[in-house]
């Protein structure tokens, strides 16, 4: 039976002796700014700090701990070699403004990575600047805006999204100042062409789509969708969160997408770091290249350089050139995988997903609304369990934790009731998939009270999230 490590977990300030000492003032320092008392932060010895965080790490679940099938998050194994190389002095200790002749290696990697991502997606140019997928989306919207402004097409103030879209999509749309038009999906779970046709107009700036969508269904009408969108004078945007399903099989560029973002911390195996850093490069078709952020990376006479001379560029969306350490790890991953490896990754990611789906559905404990063939992920519904035994998707998720397994994404996409969104990825073995399937079925047969009171084997029991929002305690001073 699984048991998580569990410690009494004092906070740093409860371990440390904090003294409110006076500061020895500096004569030459402006008096109005001189600090009087030392900063009130813990002062610990290295041994204490290491042990504190080591213990905390033992109360945390990562992809190295086990399967992590969060839908749309592509939690695949993060190769250790990438971490090691990204830590090398020659990369980690370079300054973004040092003379370009002394960072030729960095620029070579960035330009090569741009080229690789172009090949994988079928786009013409890439920018590596966005720090995350959501920032890539936001940049995509800024480019959309700049494109229409350039064409003096200033009436376009709407962006259309299907109701299955990731939450970042609508947020990025409004942040860029666009009005959001959401269209419902068909009973197959795909884009409703009739609804799309009705929504498209001379006001449409862009249609944002994930393909395969968040149900894991490939939008087979994509060529028609692309025609309709372009006929209306709008751009077609690809949310690349799900591209792990189609590498080497199909490319968004060939489907007619004008802008694509990728999440390197998903498909390209760089770690999520408990929340970040990530990286969300965007690729565009040639007509949008001149709008990409500065600097562009170029090669001239065998030398790499930064090109700031891009008059129509939208400028910058992040400091410097993007999350270089993440870019480097993705570059190493793609080098190792190569053409066949990436294709194999997508094939097995889709196989693993369909294998799990079939076996789970056979148990008849969970339903799966919408079309049956799925790609890298599938979305189950716990509605039947809820009706029959009062067990919700959240209960199932929490009970999975008791078996030492990370739950799927829950309650998303919003069009599936009591949703469990499962994305196993290609890096899980059949044995691990089988175990997960068995546990999911087992939970459906367990005493509902046990499931509703889960988890019990974790460092804490079920956490009161509502309380954390009602009475926010956000620092140790507020306790």
């Amino acid at each position: 039976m699984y048991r998580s490590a569990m410690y009494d977990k004092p906070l740093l300030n409860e371990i440390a002796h904090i003294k409110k000492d006076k500061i020895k003032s500096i004569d030459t320092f402006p008096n109005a700014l001189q600090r009087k008392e030392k900063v009130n932060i813990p002062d610990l010895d290295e041994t204490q700090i290491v042990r504190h965080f080591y213990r905390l790490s033992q109360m945390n679940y990562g992809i190295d701990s086990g399967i992590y099938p969060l839908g749309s998050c592509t939690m695949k194994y993060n190769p250790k070699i990438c971490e090691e190389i990204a830590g090398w002095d020659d990369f980690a200790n370079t300054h973004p403004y040092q003379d370009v002749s002394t960072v030729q290696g960095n620029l070579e990697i960035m330009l090569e990575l741009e080229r690789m991502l172009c090949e994988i997606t079928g786009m013409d140019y890439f920018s590596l600047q966005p720090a995350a997928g959501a920032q890539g989306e936001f940049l995509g919207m800024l480019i959309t805006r700049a494109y229409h402004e350039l064409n003096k097409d200033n009436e376009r103030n709407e962006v259309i999204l299907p109701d299955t879209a990731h939450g970042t999509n609508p947020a990025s749309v409004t942040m860029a100042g666009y009005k959001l038009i959401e269209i419902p999906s068909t009973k197959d779970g795909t884009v409703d062409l009739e609804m799309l046709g009705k929504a498209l107009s001379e006001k449409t700036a862009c249609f944002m789509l994930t393909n395969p969508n968040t149900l894991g269904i490939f939008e087979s009408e994509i060529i028609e969708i692309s025609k309709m969108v372009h006929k209306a004078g709008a751009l077609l945007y690809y949310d690349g969160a799900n591209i792990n399903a189609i590498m080497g099989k199909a490319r968004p560029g060939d489907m007619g997408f004008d802008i694509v973002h990728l999440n390197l911390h998903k498909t390209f195996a760089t770690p999520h770091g408990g929340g970040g850093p990530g990286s969300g490069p965007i690729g565009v078709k040639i007509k949008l290249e001149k709008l990409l952020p500065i600097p562009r990376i170029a090669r001239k006479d065998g030398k790499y350089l930064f090109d700031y001379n891009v008059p129509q560029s939208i400028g910058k969306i992040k400091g410097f050139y993007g999350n270089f350490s993440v870019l480097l790890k993705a570059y190493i991953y793609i080098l190792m995988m190569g053409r066949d490896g990436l294709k194999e990754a997508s094939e097995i990611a889709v196989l693993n997903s369909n294998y799990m789906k079939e076996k789970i559905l056979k148990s008849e404990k969970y339903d799966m609304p919408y079309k049956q063939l799925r790609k890298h992920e599938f979305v189950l519904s716990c509605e039947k369990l809820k009706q029959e035994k009062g067990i919700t998707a959240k209960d199932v998720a929490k009970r999975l934790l008791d078996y030492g397994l990370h739950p799927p994404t829950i309650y998303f996409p919003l069009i599936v009731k009591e949703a469990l969104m499962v994305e196993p990825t290609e890096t899980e073995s059949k044995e691990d998939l089988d175990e997960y399937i068995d546990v999911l079925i087992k939970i459906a047969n367990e005493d509902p009270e046990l499931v509703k009171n889960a988890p019990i084997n974790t460092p804490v029991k079920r956490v009161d999230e509502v309380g954390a929002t009602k009475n926010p305690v956000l620092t140790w001073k507020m306790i």
Partner: protein
Amino acid sequence: MKFIPNSNIKNSMLKEIGLNNINDLFSDIPQKIRIKNIELDNGLSQQDTEKKLREIACKNKSYHQLTSFIGGGIKPHYIPSFVKSIISRAEFYTAYTPYQSEASQGFLQAMFEYQSIIAELTGMDVANCSLYDGVTSLGEAALMCTRINRKKTFIIPENISSDKKSVLKNYTKGSELEIKEIPYDLKTGKIDLNQLKKNVDGNTAGVYIENPNFFGVFEDDVDTISKIVKDAGSIFVIGIDPISLGITKSPSEYGADIAIGEGRALGNPMDFGGSSLGIFACKKEFLRQMPGRIIGLTKDSESNRAFCMALQTREQHIRRSRATSNICTNEGLCALAAVSYLSWLGGNGLEKLSKANFENGQKLAKQIESIKGFKKMFTGVHFNEFVIKCDEDPDKINKKLLQKNIQGGLLLESEYPDLKNCVLFGITEIHNDADIEKLISALKEVSNV
């Protein structure tokens, strides 16, 4: 195949679910857009990959091969080895955003501690657990100001980095917020108070200043500035360098409503400019307008202390188009480095670190000024960066320094036409007297030619 354990058994797995061929799984992709292959090379073994990367790495010069004195908001700092050891714990770095709190107590607690330490450092009530970087923090802060008071101008000093100006412009494009720049005083390098006073009015959503500013100069008229901002009923946003806070007042002591900054220097390497760490803290009254993830302390079902993400109703995965920001992935691991590093420094260590940076800054400026042909541009007291005006073309000087494996200061003239032949030098605690001597003797040599 690498990292794909089921490669060898795919046929039997296919058979188990009633399929014959892997392509059956892709039958819903229209023929017209199917491809056979990606036009990339075949994959390399780990051994060959490492060899190739060694060759590429040789084309770079790290700080250890190229003694660097370049300013511009990012500089090398010392990182004790244990920090890397902590952030290399795979339970931390291979975890996702802590949606499942019961399996993420370790990271959640660490982020709660990070928020607590940032709150102490800035003197603010609350902090989030990171944004992308200090640059985008400014964009988010401006948007937050107008969300709070619905006013339509945001005021910045002319002398902030060009990255910040550009990002701010892009972040506010969708908001009808107008950005106004206040010039700096050519003599002191500080913000022009008269111009500031003239421009701040009832329409001002927020006023941003940085301490020290982009030229390395401390804005010490903070009480006057604060009064101007408060009198107009505007929101005061202060950009900080955390390394300076061991000796400077916390921004809350001179009236900050929102404190932001770049936190990379706290235990994170330069990484060619990324990763980075966006610090974002504010007063409690503005909490619900804050962007980004916030970790809260709560209880579990048996009343034990527990942590989870709090106030998620501000965020995109719940609030969607009405979220306070679109941010999802942040810089959590860099925040983890920062909290472990800061708890090692403690209040004493931070004071020492601040002083070392300040003193090295004074020492280097003085020694450069002692060479003929170099003069400090501004009279304002500076921290660990400062502007030097050269008699000669600084670009040429930098090229000559480079031949001696020294990286000179950042050229400012293209960005600031008033600052002809000016460069921005930067120095930190990692530079010792020998490093300084190396630069000074090289400068003497190259400027005599």
